[in-house]
């Protein structure tokens, strides 16, 4: 395989250094490394980060290949700087057996652009009634460690308790979509002044917070690992802060769109802004940024949710919730966290690679940029700015909430175990 010498990149934004990539690993790192038998990549002014890891991606295959496939989603991920993504279980059929998770995992291997790590469903068919064969999925070739009924909440408290307890046997984690279903019947957007004015049924913040409060108490009681998906409210951040101060084994993620956009977007009734949990208020956005900055929120999870045009070009109430996220995630984090000085590049590496990899127990990802480590890397030009054009995205879908918005940062190159999946901003296959 080809060796690469990345010249003059700044690991974690620190001092410029040369990085020699050999046989899939970082062979050496230092000043003016000799160019011998390696292809040179000029990386002056670029930031080097460990390859990004997403805890929350919807790849839609099997079942809705018209919206996304493992391959198209993998390409979008690589272009976004990711080297590993967790593929959510709400496919058709649902990823609730060893067979389906292995199928998704194999498709990821064949695409070869990122490591596709399947998430297993917690309950059979996401129905919230009985546990899926969690152990069989853990033991499968896909080595599932993250389990989630995402899209649905595991609402039954006794079942949630059993799930949290059961996955301890293989160091798994339950990733909860926190939404009390009885409080969100027919919900269309954040419940508040705007929902009242727009006549769209509200999704109250308390419906998320009530479940998180319940789950952290359950996790504490049984000593299990809990992960909270796409936290969206200031109250949720407060509950997580309290739980962590008590030593509860809880982690959480926030999406790029919840860091940037608010419920004001719903004023247009354009369903591209319909998402679950919904976009919240300015105060929530501020609390989420603060929570990500101080580590109360561990990770950025994209909740990349591609939808076919006909599922979005409709009345608001009929449209499916969800937004694209993989290709702009890093740019949004730069815009909302790095440029305002709330997170440095080491912080970005921590929240977008190190911690999500640790939560998913991915040994090969989220590793430090040092000699001997697997060469999972991304090179970013922080000074570039571009206007988002949905037509130019690699995802099969076009439901980007950032259309027409200028965002900072450009992924120049992504390496997966030493193989460039993206070079000069272009996917390599």
């Amino acid at each position: 395989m080809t060796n690469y010498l990345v010249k003059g990149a700044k690991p974690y934004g620190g001092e410029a250094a040369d990085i020699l990539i050999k046989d899939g690993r970082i062979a050496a790192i230092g000043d003016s490394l000799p160019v011998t038998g390696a292809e040179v990549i000029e990386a002056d002014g670029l930031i080097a980060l460990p390859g990004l890891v997403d805890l929350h991606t919807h790849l839609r295959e099997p079942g809705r290949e018209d919206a996304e496939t493992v391959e198209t989603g993998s390409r979008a991920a690589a272009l976004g700087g990711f080297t590993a993504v967790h593929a959510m279980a709400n496919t058709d059929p649902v990823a609730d057996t060893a067979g389906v998770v292995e199928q998704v995992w194999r498709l990821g291997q064949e695409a070869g652009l990122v490591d596709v790590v399947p998430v297993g469903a917690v309950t059979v068919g996401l129905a919230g009634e009985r546990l899926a064969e969690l152990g069989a999925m853990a033991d499968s070739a896909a080595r599932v460690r993250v389990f989630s009924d995402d899209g649905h909440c595991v609402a039954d408290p006794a079942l949630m308790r059993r799930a949290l307890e059961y996955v301890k046997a293989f160091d798994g984690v339950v990733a909860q979509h926190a939404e009390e279903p009885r409080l969100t019947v027919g919900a269309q957007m954040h419940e508040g002044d705007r929902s009242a004015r727009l006549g769209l049924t509200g999704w109250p913040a308390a419906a998320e917070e009530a479940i998180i409060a319940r789950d952290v108490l359950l996790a504490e009681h049984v000593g299990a690992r809990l992960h909270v998906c796409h936290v969206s409210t200031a109250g949720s951040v407060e509950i997580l802060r309290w739980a962590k101060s008590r030593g509860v084994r809880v982690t959480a993620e926030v999406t790029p769109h919840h860091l940037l956009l608010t419920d004001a977007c719903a004023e247009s009734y354009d369903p591209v802004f319909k998402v679950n949990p919904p976009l919240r208020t300015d105060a929530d956005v501020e609390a989420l940024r603060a929570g990500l900055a101080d580590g109360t929120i561990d990770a950025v999870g994209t909740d990349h949710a591609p939808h076919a045009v006909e599922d979005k070009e409709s009345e608001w109430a009929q449209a499916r919730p969800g937004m694209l996220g993989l290709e702009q995630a890093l740019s949004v984090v730069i815009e909302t966290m790095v440029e305002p000085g709330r997170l440095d590049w080491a912080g970005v590496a921590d929240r977008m690679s190190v911690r999500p990899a640790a939560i998913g127990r991915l040994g090969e990802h989220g590793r430090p940029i040092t000699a001997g480590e697997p060469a999972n890397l991304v090179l970013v030009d922080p000074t570039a700015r571009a206007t988002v054009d949905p037509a130019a995205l690699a995802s099969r879908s076009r439901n980007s909430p950032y259309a027409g918005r200028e965002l900072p940062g450009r992924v120049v190159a992504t390496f997966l175990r030493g193989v460039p999946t993206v070079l000069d901003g272009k996917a390599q296959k």
Partner: protein
Amino acid sequence: MKRHLLDATDLDRADATLVLDTAAQIEQALAGREVKKLPTLRGRTVVNLFYEDSTRTRISFELAAKRLSADVINFSAKGSSVSKGESLKDTALTLEAMGADAVVIRHAASGAPHRLASWVKGSVVNAGDGTHEHPTQALLDAYTVRQRLGRLEGVRVTIVGDVLHSRVARSNVGLLHTLGAEVTLVAPPTLLPVGVGSWPAEVTYDLDAVLPKSDVVMMLRVQAERMNASFFPSAREYSRRYGLDGRRMAALPDDAIVMHPGPMNRGMEIAADVADSVRSTIVEQVANGVSTRMAVLYLLLGGSPA
């Protein structure tokens, strides 16, 4: 005027007054005529696109367009290609191809008229969307108040009932505020939206306390399905606390009027003798609906130079 009428708040005070004045002129022009028709919109096409059953509103718009000599197409979603899964966008493109100058849309989804407006070149008139707005209802209500009381500025309007799910309440609060009236909302707390405190209206749970200070009482229809969803304990309790009966009507100032957008649940939110009393404007509201809608179509399509 803007090209569309989507929300009551699309109208500033001058525009809203223009609509009411135009409606009054139209009414005058037609008074005493044998053929109740003006040639104003001859050759123009108005489509009534009704995704939700509402015979009264549809007929009102149909009559309004016909009295302006427009060609009217009634496009009911039931039994059409819409029920076979044609999307709103596809329907919009069809209407566009038919050369619709105005589309009057009634839809169960809030915001559907806004979506439609982004896809068609003609004017869009919101004839009621989900729990969002019903601006022509608010216009005809304002017209009726002005006709009865002679003014809107400073008029004290009390709106009673299911504000949470009512597009009529939303539109009325906005328009009446624009026109200088003072609005008070009365409902059980379960039927008031979160954030109602930011609306340009007073809010109270006590109907009896506000009646003596009300020039207008507007009763909202209570949907039967709210009773099963525990928005209030029972129809009986609702009627006792928030229904308008003869005793409560007697607490109103002498020249106060009683309104209802219809259809009424007699004996529930409004007692039969109240609905039929001289204070009630319910029949006038229906008649005024036609002239107000004529004014809207006239102003959107023919009245003002583009």
